Every structure is written in structure tokens, then in C-alpha cells.
């Protein structure tokens, strides 16, 4: 009885839980992108204690890359590549927003149209199951 109810609850909520894996994966990727830009912008002589800031950022980037690969692999257990892969190009939109807010880069309408067309291209690529992930 309890087992059946638990299975029903799990079935009800599991798609959303798995979708979180994809969202976490792209957020980690965007975090890595932002850390990369911070590392590029910081003064090489700037340190935290004796450790250079850019080195700390680099370690954050590597940790993010490792974590992102694990989360992405878990996400692929529940979603087809054709559904999951276009999510990766969502990172570009998050990066565009971060570029605007954090680094005061200009954002034009052509930037948004360009990224939308790129995402459409990724959707087509993801139709092919042999795409490399």
C-alpha cells in the first residue's frame, strides 16, 4: 500500500526533479563562464593570502567543469539527447545576461536574434543521435 503510494508520488514529481538536473548543469556551465571572465579581468598580482586570485578562479572553473560533466551524464539518463542538447545553448543566453549585468557589455537585438538562430541550429543537430556530448 505504502509502496504503491510512494511509486505514484515519485511518478508525479520525477520529471520535474530530472529537469532540475538539466537546469543545474547549465547553471554550472554559466558559472564557469563567469569565473573565466572574472579570471581574465583580475590583476595577476592580486592575491588571496598568498594564492593568486586568477588561480583560485581557475580551480573554480575546473571544479565546475568536473561537476557539470557528472550532472550532465545523470541528466542524460532521463532525457534523450535531442531534448537535452538544446538546453546547453541556453548557457549563451545566461552568459549574455551576465555580460550585461556583471561586466557592463552592450547587448543588441542582433545578439539576441543571433543566439536564437544558433539555438535553432543546435535543435537540428540534436535530432541526430550520433552527436558527440
Amino acid at each position, binding site marked *: 500500500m505504502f509502496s504503491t503510494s510512494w511509486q505514484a508520488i515519485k511518478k508525479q514529481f520525477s520529471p520535474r526533479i530530472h529537469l532540475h538536473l538539466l537546469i543545474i548543469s547549465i547553471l554550472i556551465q554559466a558559472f564557469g563562464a563567469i569565473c573565466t571572465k572574472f579570471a581574465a579581468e583580475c590583476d595577476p598580482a592580486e592575491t588571496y593570502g598568498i594564492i593568486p586570485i586568477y588561480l583560485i578562479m581557475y580551480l573554480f572553473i575546473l571544479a565546475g*567543469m568536473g561537476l557539470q560533466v557528472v550532472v550532465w551524464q545523470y541528466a542524460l539518463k532521463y532525457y534523450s539527447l535531442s531534448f537535452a542538447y538544446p538546453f546547453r545553448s541556453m548557457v549563451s543566453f545566461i552568459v549574455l545576461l551576465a555580460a550585461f549585468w556583471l561586466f557592463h557589455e552592450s547587448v543588441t537585438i542582433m*545578439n539576441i536574434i543571433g543566439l536564437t538562430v544558433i539555438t535553432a541550429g543546435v535543435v537540428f543537430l540534436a535530432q541526430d543521435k*550520433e552527436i558527440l556530448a
Partner: protein
Amino acid sequence: MIIFYLITLVVIIFTSVGHLLLKIAANRAREANGRVRMVTHPVSIIAYGIFAFVALLSIYAMKGLEMKSFFALNSLTYIVIPLLGLLVLKEPFSRDKITGAVLITAGVLLFYL
């Protein structure tokens, strides 16, 4: 300025080669019927090393490029990876891939207009 675009080009090529190596490692692990682990396969280790190097190169590229431009250009890896798959692994380049590649190239060009 051109040097930062060249570094970005190297980032795109190395990232694509890294993904290709991961695919080769996955294929070899599958052929070995579980006797070889994909994640610890020497080819995978080389790929991880390449990705770490790519992260370092990306920092240098972004010293001269806007973050949004760097990541828009990076979308070209979506094209280079299937192209390497065609050249090295003889994977088919389907009509969907061609359409996707054309759209991505158009998107990158539109981004810079």
C-alpha cells in the same frame, strides 16, 4: 585584437578534439565489453587534460574579447565536432546536421551584425 580571435579558434578546435577523444574512449570501452572503464581510459585522461588547457586558454582569450562574443563564437564547436566525427570516425553527416551547421553559422554572423 586578432590574437584573441586566434586563441578562440584554438579553443574551439581543442574543445572539439577533446570531445572526439571522449567519443573514441567511449567506443573503445564499449568494444572491450566492460573490461575497460570509459572514465579512466587513457584517451579520456588526455581529453580531460585538453579541457583543463582549454579553460586556461579561454581566460587569455577573454582578456581581449567580450564574454558574449567569446561564447557566441564557441557555438562553432557544435559544427566542428560533427565534422571531426565525419573525418575521423566516418560518422554520417546527415541532412539535419547540415541544416544545424548552416543555422549556427548564420546565427554567429547575425550575432556580429
